[in-house]
C-alpha cells in the first residue's frame, strides 16, 4: 500500500528530529570521551606509584604529587565535615519544620543563589572572613570552611529532595502512634532519606575536590617542604598544583608531563567518586520497595 505524501512528510520530519537528538547526544559523548582520552594519553606515562607517593623535587620539575593528593583529601574531608551536618540540618528545617511560606521561599532562593555564585567569590569571601578577620590564616581550616560553604547548596538540595522523597504516609503512620515529631524524623524519615542524602553529598565531594579558586587564597600553597601537621597548616592541592605548574612556574614547558599526570589523577579521583555515587544510587533504587 502506498504511503500518502502527507504521511511521508511526517516521517521525514520525525526522522530529521531523531537525527538531531542523536547528533546532540553524540556531540556530548564524543567531546567528553575526547577530553578524557586526551588527558589519559598525555598523562598516563607520568602516573606511576612513585608519582603518587613521592613529594615534588628539583623546583617541582621532578618527583611526585603526594602532598597535593593528601592536601586535596584533607580539604575535601574537612569540607564534607562542615557541610554535611549543616546541610542536612538546614534541609530538615526547610522540609520538616518550617512553615511553608514567604520566609522559607526566601531561604530557598538564597540557597539557589549561593549555588550560582562564581567560585572565586567564595575564595574572596573565605579570604576576608576566615583568613583575615578570624585570623585562621591560609590553612586547611580556612580552605575546608570555604569549600564547605561552596558545596552547601548541593548538599541542602540533595537532602531536601531525599527528605521529600520519603512518603508522607510514613510520617503520618509514626505520628499517629504517638511518636513525637523529632523521633519520627530521627527514626523514620532520616534513615529512609539517608541513601539519597549521601549520594547527593558524594557529588558535592567531587565538586569540592576539583575547585581551585576557593582554595587559592584560603588554603593552598605553591609548595610546602613538609606535610601538614595540623589543620592550621597550609597544604598543596591538586587543582592548585596544576594551575601553578601551568602558569606560574619558571619551568612551564619542562613540567608539562607532570601537569598532565596531575590532571589525570584529579579527573580520575573526581570521576571515581561520582561513579561510586552512581553505583550506590542504582543499588538503592533496586532495593527500594515503596
Amino acid at each position, binding site marked *: 500500500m502506498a504511503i500518502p505524501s502527507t504521511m511521508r512528510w511526517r516521517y521525514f520530519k520525525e526522522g530529521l528530529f531523531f537525527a538531531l537528538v542523536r547528533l546532540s547526544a553524540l556531540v556530548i559523548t564524543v567531546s567528553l570521551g575526547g577530553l578524557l582520552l586526551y588527558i589519559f594519553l598525555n598523562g598516563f606515562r607520568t602516573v606511576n606509584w612513585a608519582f603518587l607517593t613521592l613529594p615534588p623535587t628539583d623546583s617541582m620539575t621532578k618527583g611526585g604529587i603526594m602532598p597535593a593528593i593528601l592536601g586535596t583529601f584533607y580539604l575535601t574531608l574537612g569540607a564534607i565535615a562542615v557541610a554535611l551536618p549543616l546541610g542536612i540540618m538546614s534541609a530538615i528545617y526547610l522540609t520538616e519544620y518550617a512553615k511553608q511560606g514567604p520566609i522559607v521561599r526566601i531561604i530557598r532562593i538564597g540557597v539557589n543563589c549561593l549555588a550560582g555564585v562564581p567560585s572565586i567569590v567564595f575564595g574572596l569571601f573565605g579570604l576576608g572572613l576566615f583568613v583575615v578577620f578570624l585570623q585562621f590564616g591560609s590553612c586547611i581550616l580556612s580552605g575546608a570552611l570555604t569549600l564547605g560553604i561552596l558545596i552547601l547548596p548541593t548538599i541542602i538540595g540533595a537532602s531536601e529532595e531525599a527528605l521529600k522523597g520519603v512518603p508522607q504516609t510514613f*510520617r503520618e503512620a509514626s505520628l*499517629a502512634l504517638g511518636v513525637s515529631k523529632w523521633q519520627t524524623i530521627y527514626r523514620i524519615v532520616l534513615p529512609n532519606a539517608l541513601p539519597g542524602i549521601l549520594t547527593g553529598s558524594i557529588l558535592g565531594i567531587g565538586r569540592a575536590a576539583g575547585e581551585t579558586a576557593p582554595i587559592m587564597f584560603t588554603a593552598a600553597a605553591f609548595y610546602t617542604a613538609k606535610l601538614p601537621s595540623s589543620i592550621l597548616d597550609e597544604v598543596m592541592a591538586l587543582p592548585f598544583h596544576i594551575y601553578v605548574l601551568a602558569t606560574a612556574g619558571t619551568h612551564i614547558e619542562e613540567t608539562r608531563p607532570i601537569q598532565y599526570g596531575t590532571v589525570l589523577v584529579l579527573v580520575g579521583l573526581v570521576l571515581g567518586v561520582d561513579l561510586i555515587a552512581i553505583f550506590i544510587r542504582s543499588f538503592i533504587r533496586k532495593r527500594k520497595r515503596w
Partner: protein
Amino acid sequence: MVTVEDTRVIYVKNVNFYYGGFRALTDITMDFEQNRVTALIGPSGCGKSTLLRLLNRMNDLIDGTRVEGEVIFEGNNIYDAKVDPVDIRRRIGMVFQKPNPFPKSIYNNITYGPRLAGLNNRIDLEALVERSLRQAVLWDEVKDILNQSAMMLSGGQQQRLCIARALAMKPDVLLMDEPTSALDPISTAKIEELIQDLKKLYTIIIVTHNMQQAARISDMTGFFYIGKLIEFNATEKIFTKPDHKQTEDYITGRFG
C-alpha cells in the same frame, strides 16, 4: 436519645473546623460510645475524614487549620493548651486508607511505637507482638516470618499489620479512615470480621465510602453532607427509616 451519657468514651461538642478561610465542619456534636462501631458516611469532601482526624489531632499537621468547640476524651478537651497531642495519639490509634507499614521487619513495625513509648523488655515486646498480631488475625500467617520486611506482605496483610501496629499501643479508641478502600473483597471481608471482634475491646470509629460496609459492621452511623452532620442514629434506623430525606437519597444512591 439513643445515647447513654456514661458510656461515651469520646464526644464532640459544637465543633467548627477551618482550613484557612474554608469552613470544613460546621457545628458538629456527636457522641462515640464504648465498644461500639460508629460509621461516618457521606459524599467525598463532606468532612467525615476531617472529623476523624480531628479526634486524634492529626489535623494539627496541616498548616493553617483552626478548631472551635470541644473534643472531650475521658473528661478532658483534647484541644486544651495543656494537652500534648503525642499523648492523645498514644491513646487514640489510627489506621489509614492505604496500608502504610514502615520499611522495617514485621516485628519492628509492631514494636516501633511501644519501644519509643518506653517499653524495652524483650520478653514483654515479644508477647506484645504476638498478642497484637493475634488480635489483628495475622499471627498464623506471619509467625514464622517476623523478621522479614513488612513490604513483602500482600495489601490485605499489610493493612492488618497496620491494625496490629495500632493495637500494640493499647489504645482506647481506634480510628479507621476507609481502611478497606484499597483492598480486594476477600481482604475486605477479613477486616470487617476483625472489626466485629475488636469492638469487644475498643471503641471504633470508621470512615467508609461503602454503604454496605457501614450497614454490615456499624452500630451507629453519622451521615455528613457539606461539613454538616445531617443525621446521626442507630445504623439500622439510618438504613431503613432515616429521618432526613438527604440521608435517604444518599444511601439509596440518588446522589453521592
